[in-house]
């Protein structure tokens, strides 16, 4: 009956909210439950290594140049065959990212010629001081692979002359 509209409208509204009470809550109980991340999620940076344990980063600072927030600081040093960190001539002796400046755009990832820097899946980045937000190379680099040796390595001369490896097109 249209005359009862002022009442039925209210009742309909009440019914809607009551029915929604019995739906499954959408809440994710965060620290215990975590939603799976998307494959292309951009979290904290990770510095990668090769299979043999050498660092991929060659200290070229292209990431620092690409960074729109100027969050990356790279200082390169010379590799020698007695103290080899990465293939080629140079390695990053200092690599710092200020995670408070970083906007997680992933330009560093794109700029990197050796795919050394990758935005990982860690997003729980809370700091109690500004100095804590500056991640050094030791904090960013991934642990050496089980069968590889840690850096610096003593290598046979003439084996690692090429800084940038042969690369395939990336697949997600």
């Amino acid at each position, binding site marked *: 009956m*249209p*005359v*009862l*509209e*002022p*009442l039925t409208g*209210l009742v309909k*509204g*009440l019914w*809607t*909210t*009551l029915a*929604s*009470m019995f*739906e*499954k*809550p*959408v*809440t994710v*109980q965060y620290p215990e439950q975590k939603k799976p991340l998307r494959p292309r999620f951009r979290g904290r940076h990770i510095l990668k290594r090769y299979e043999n344990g050498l660092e991929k980063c060659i200290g070229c600072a292209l990431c620092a140049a690409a960074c729109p927030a100027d969050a990356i600081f790279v200082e390169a040093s010379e590799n020698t065959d007695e103290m080899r960190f990465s293939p080629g001539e140079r390695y990053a002796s200092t690599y710092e990212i200020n995670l408070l400046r970083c906007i997680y755009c992933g330009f560093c990832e794109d700029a990197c010629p050796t795919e050394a820097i990758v935005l990982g899946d860690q997003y729980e980045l809370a700091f109690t001081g500004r100095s804590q937000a500056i991640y050094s190379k030791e904090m960013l680099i991934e642990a050496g692979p089980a069968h590889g040796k840690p850096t610096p390595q003593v290598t046979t001369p003439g084996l690692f002359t090429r800084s940038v490896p042969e690369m395939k097109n990336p697949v997600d």
Partner: protein
Amino acid sequence: MNFTLVIEWLAKGFVWVLVLLGGFAYLTLYERRALARIQVRIGPNRAGWQGILQPIADAIKLIFKEELMPAQADKLIFFLAPVVTLVPALVITAVVPWGPKPLHLFGRDITLYIADINVGVLYIMSVTSIAVYGIVLAGWSSNNKYAMMGGLRSSAQMVSYEIALGLSFVSAILLAGTMRMTGIVEAQKTNWFVLLQPVGTAIFLIATLAEVNRAPFDMPEAEQELTAGYHVEYSGMKFALIFMAEYDKMIAISAIGATLFFGGYNGPFIDQFPWLGPIYIFLKIVLLLFGMIWVRATFPRIRYDRLMAFGWKVMLPLSLAVVFITAIGIILAQEVNALLIWLIPVASLLAGFVAIALMYRTLRRKEYARA
């Protein structure tokens, strides 16, 4: 006056105030959890088991918060206003009976109410009227235009809806033939007044929403328009007192509604097991509180002029009609046939239907005028 009697009153009053204050704390949790469920969330469940310690955490936070007082505020009234709001909310339920038979404790019969005065309903009406002072004074003494407007809105709204509220009380009084709260509960032993006077109950429920400034009638504390209304300038424990008053008013009004229209402590097997009385009234209060939360979760705040129009042009005439219908029905039942008492719900539902139809017509007319 005997000394033990004074002790008994003090103890009962103390226990009752503690119940109300604890009830306030857990009502906040209840409301947050219920609202969350309606919004398909979970709500606070971290502090303690299922969030059971959340009110304590809130209380600690509020106690340690800084108390600010505006420089231009009327200091004394600013300080007194929360107290003036809280005290009526606490004392109002003194007349609500909790159980049929006195409790036998320490060799004394302890009645399950604090005061059984013969003008119980009148007492409730007068105390609720005092509650408005606290809000108006809080708004005025803050020396803030938003607070002032909140206080003014609150007073206008409360005065308008108090009439409908009072008239809905009258129908309960007429049906029971007494103003004594215990008498009203006893009169509902067979039929709850919600069955005899459904429209009166509806008027009561709507008017109480306006009386305690709950959504959809929460204009005095409309966040979007008045930032927070009459308590903008309050912080820390003074804000907690105002908040407490608001929630205790909700509890009080639910207790009164349960007593006047939903049979009070009456329920199945009450005669065999009198201890069921407090449980029944507690359940009824919880259900009525859920109703308030439910309504808050459902309806948007109505416009101020519509609120006033609804109060004066719908609620007041309808409640007057309900009082007349109740009176006539009672006379017919007494003089002609006892079964004619059932004319009251039929006729009042008819009156309610007429009111809704007239509202529909007005709304339609306004739509045409706009088109």
